[in-house]
């Protein structure tokens, strides 16, 4: 369904003006395709981050040579892909709390009361706790890395160097008086994240056979996980085509939605809440999106993603229902 440009009646507050209130149009004159919560997918997500007990108040070796899969079970080359090792100290949160907040993408800065990091040199696959710093400030290991029920320590291994963004896997490290373990060894992240998506119960989004296809997601209030939409972070729209596949097939391989699309049109966003699908560029061929007509039957999917969100799950996934030519 498409909406016509809305008419906005202006009145109420300006009754003192000598002219009659005018009915005026909004600036946008292009018909849009509104996408609403009912069109969005539903999902459940949980994290199970491993805990590694270590010595308390002493230095540690931290190694990630075993990090060959990330939490989405995608391949990782630990030398090439890991740019940053960060250590977060979180206050007033248990490990379960942290897992839940990461899954819900609502970890706040106030939860963090310490952060240090190591920029990988793409040669060594180990560092030490004492080598981590933040603008020259290091961890006072004897004072700060000690057993404390009010503090939780989490290591983040990331692609990219922005704090908290691009995490490929994570691990809790727990200083314990009873432990003599001085080595933190990071293995595969596959299995840490459980993610189940329900694409089928969302109402398919009707799209016309011929453009324009300006999709407007102002009406989407929650992401697939039911949390508020991170409007300020949505930085990519995509349209994928999956010939010979069913919606159930997509659900079963949800981490590989982008890999499984035979055509994937991408639109970089800069904060807007609409996207013109005609501006989509196919990732391999570089061709512009020109419509939904294909020789093969298949599934069309629209998505919105947020690369800076802590949870990598797409904000929006909606099955598209292209109208027949001439309708």
């Amino acid at each position, binding site marked *: 369904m498409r909406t016509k440009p809305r008419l906005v009646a*202006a009145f109420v507050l*300006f009754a003192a003006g000598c*002219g009659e209130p*005018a009915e005026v149009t*909004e600036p946008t004159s292009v018909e849009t395709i509104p996408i609403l919560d009912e069109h969005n997918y539903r999902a459940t997500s949980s994290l199970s981050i491993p805990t590694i007990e270590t010595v308390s108040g002493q230095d540690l070796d931290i190694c990630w040579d075993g990090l060959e899969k990330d939490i989405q079970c995608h391949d990782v080359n630990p030398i090439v892909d890991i740019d940053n090792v960060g250590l977060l100290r979180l206050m007033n949160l248990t490990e379960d709390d942290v897992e839940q907040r990461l899954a819900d993408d609502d970890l706040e800065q106030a939860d963090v009361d310490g952060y240090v990091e190591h920029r990988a040199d793409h040669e060594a696959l180990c560092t030490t706790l004492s080598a981590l710093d933040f603008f020259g400030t290091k961890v006072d290991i004897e004072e700060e890395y000690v057993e404390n029920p009010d503090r939780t320590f989490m290591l983040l291994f990331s692609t990219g160097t922005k704090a908290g963004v691009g995490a490929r896997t994570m691990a809790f490290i727990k200083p314990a008086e009873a432990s003599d373990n001085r080595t933190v060894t990071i293995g595969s992240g596959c299995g840490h994240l459980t993610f189940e998506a329900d694409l089928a119960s969302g109402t398919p989004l009707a799209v016309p056979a011929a453009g324009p296809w300006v999709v407007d997601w102002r009406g989407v209030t929650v992401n697939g996980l039911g949390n508020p939409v991170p409007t300020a972070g949505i930085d990519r729209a995509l349209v994928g085509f999956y010939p010979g596949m069913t919606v159930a097939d997509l659900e079963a391989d949800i981490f590989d939605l982008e890999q499984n699309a035979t055509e994937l049109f991408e639109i970089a966003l800069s904060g807007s809440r609409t996207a013109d699908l005609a501006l989509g560029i196919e990732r391999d061929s570089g061709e512009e999106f020109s419509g939904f007509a294909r020789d093969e039957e298949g599934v069309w999917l629209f998505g919105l993603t947020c690369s800076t969100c802590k949870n990598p799950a797409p904000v929006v996934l909606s099955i598209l229902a292209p109208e027949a030519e001439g309708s």
Partner: protein
Amino acid sequence: MKRAVPAVHLAVASMLAPLAGACGSDAELPTGVTATVSDDITTVVEVRWTTEDATAGYVEYGLPGQPRRRTPLEATPGTAHAQALLGLKADEVYEYRVVIGEESSEVATVRTGDLPLGMPPLTTVGSGQEEFVLTPVLGSSTAVLIVDQDGEIVWYHMDDRELDFYRARLSVDGKSLLYNAASVSGTPSDASELVRVALDGSSTSSIPVPLLAHDFVEHPDGTIGAMVVEYGDFDGTEIRGDKIVEIDRDGNIETVWTSWDCFDPAETPGDDIDLGWTFANALDYDPEEDAYYLGMRNFSSIAKIDRQSRACEWVLGTFGGTFDFAPGSTRFLHEHQFHLQGNRIVVFDNDGSPNDDSRVLEYELDFDAMVATEVWRYVSEPTVYSFVLGEPTRLADGDTFITWSAAGQLERVSPEGVSRWKVNSGAGYAFGFSTLAKSLYAGPEG
């Protein structure tokens, strides 16, 4: 001094308000009324109109059903007019009309644009905040923001230079926002600058001030006082002190005070001279007293500095202190900003608590006996820790506005210690210091 580069971008052309049938003298009526969303700041709208006769007008605007605001009355009558609508939320349809005396244009609407990527996600609880909050953002992105009473971003300026921003202020002429681009975590930067951005987004300019530190002030005459790192020799070793410089409207820089004017490192070494001797981190100015107030982290002290004589009239704190603390009164440690009003001072105490949380302490100062007595304290619930920055501001109604900077939290607290309004940023986004303004049109006095 770099010169302003006009950069008005007319982005989304709004509708024209038809004026057929408007009443009053035609020569004084606004015609050709347009509203244009700024390309640079999508929450700023410029309204333009013309009149046959020279007139002075203003614009009323607001969300439908909400109280309306107004721009200031134009200072000079003219026939071609332009005013910026400020304080607008993103992606909202606003009503506006031009008012000239008893006459006005018909009501029209304009939709503001979306916020750009990189803005911090903010969550707000409570109510009762009455001022806009000007604050830089550090961490996952670097920008300067104005947050409204609902905790929404209504103005922003992105700046991707490899520096951080710590303080933002409305300029005394009411037309610009000033901020410092500097580096205080690690080596101070030779490329640091004071930046001026027109509130309507039309221009930016900057003044290079090498080795800028955390804070600056603007005097009523437009002179800027800023903290700058200064290195000096102590027994053959270079140590890091500080100075206050003043920059006039032409960009001329003059040193008006240095750490060595009041302190001797042999007698007052501070607690971490290897990192920095005085390590000044907060600056205020009182035009009535013609005095600067300087916070020094590694002294855990705050000094009142006579601007003319360069003398420290008093020092409150641990190193170099001239006040005694009354029995039972808590000392602050590694404090950042503070707010002095009469004989009361509220201090952001970063590290003084034994519980690894930050807090605000208030003291009553007896200037005769030179005794400081703690009279109030506040710890946020849940507790937060700001290892750097942080600022308390005592408001006219007795509330205290607290910026828990590194913890990404803004909070308004009643005298009874009840949290009335609180904004939290998503992980990865910290705040700098905050400046409050009831209006965005009236400069710092607003």
